[in-house]
């Protein structure tokens, strides 16, 4: 299965592309950049098939490589704002089933123009599917 168009294309220009890698599967979803924390949490729970009693932590990796915890709307808004500032990157969600933790990874693509970005994305996507 080949990946669809990258962020920035017209039909999804207001949405944030989220790649969720969990338990060996890869899911591509789009979320609105105005999403509430509750909606986002529900989305992650649905993707990873968590039950409502399962406790998990969401983190995203910033441009300095540090995992930043998201537990309030303020922090989710900041993660999405910085994602939009670095629009060449993808927002990737990793699920670690053995510790029941979701990590949202922001891929670093600092110097890449969009065609190289697409090429790298294709390679990453294929590698992840093989796992």
């Amino acid at each position: 299965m080949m990946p669809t168009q990258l962020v920035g294309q017209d039909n999804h220009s207001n949405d944030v592309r989220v790649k969720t890698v969990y338990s060996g599967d890869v899911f591509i979803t789009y979320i609105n950049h105005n999403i509430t924390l509750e909606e986002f949490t529900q989305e992650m729970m649905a993707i990873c098939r968590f039950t409502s009693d399962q406790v998990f932590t969401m983190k995203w990796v910033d441009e300095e490589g540090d995992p930043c915890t998201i537990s309030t709307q303020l922090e989710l808004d900041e993660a999405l704002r910085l994602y939009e500032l670095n629009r060449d990157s993808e927002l990737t969600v990793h699920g670690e089933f053995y510790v029941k933790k979701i990590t949202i990874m922001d891929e670093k693509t600092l110097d890449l123009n969009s065609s190289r970005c697409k090429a790298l994305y294709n390679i990453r996507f294929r590698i992840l599917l093989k796992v």
Partner: protein
Amino acid sequence: MSKNKIAARIDSQSVEVKTKFDAEFRRFSLSRLEKVKYEDFKALIEKLHRLHDVAFLISYTDPRDGDLLPINNDDNFARALLTARPLLRVIIQRKVLVSFVFSDLNYPEQNKTQFLN
């Protein structure tokens, strides 16, 4: 990141804040226009990092020389916000309680307990 994007971050009306407590990082933005007070900022830190029963100190890293400077009143908080270009790095530390036991020929043994920092 392109120069336009870096310029967009610095020109904005927001201060990006990145806080660290133990191994946990959190990021959020504060509006420069809202003139947040120190007490409000401290309450926000307490809420985000769940420090309701913990005595803590707030410091920030001066981007010019790397010094760790305190934030404990409105003045140094306002100064900290001005140094953010655009990121304000905040370090949160637990207050450490240290006990001293003094023993001297002239003075009876005394216990003194105080905060180390």
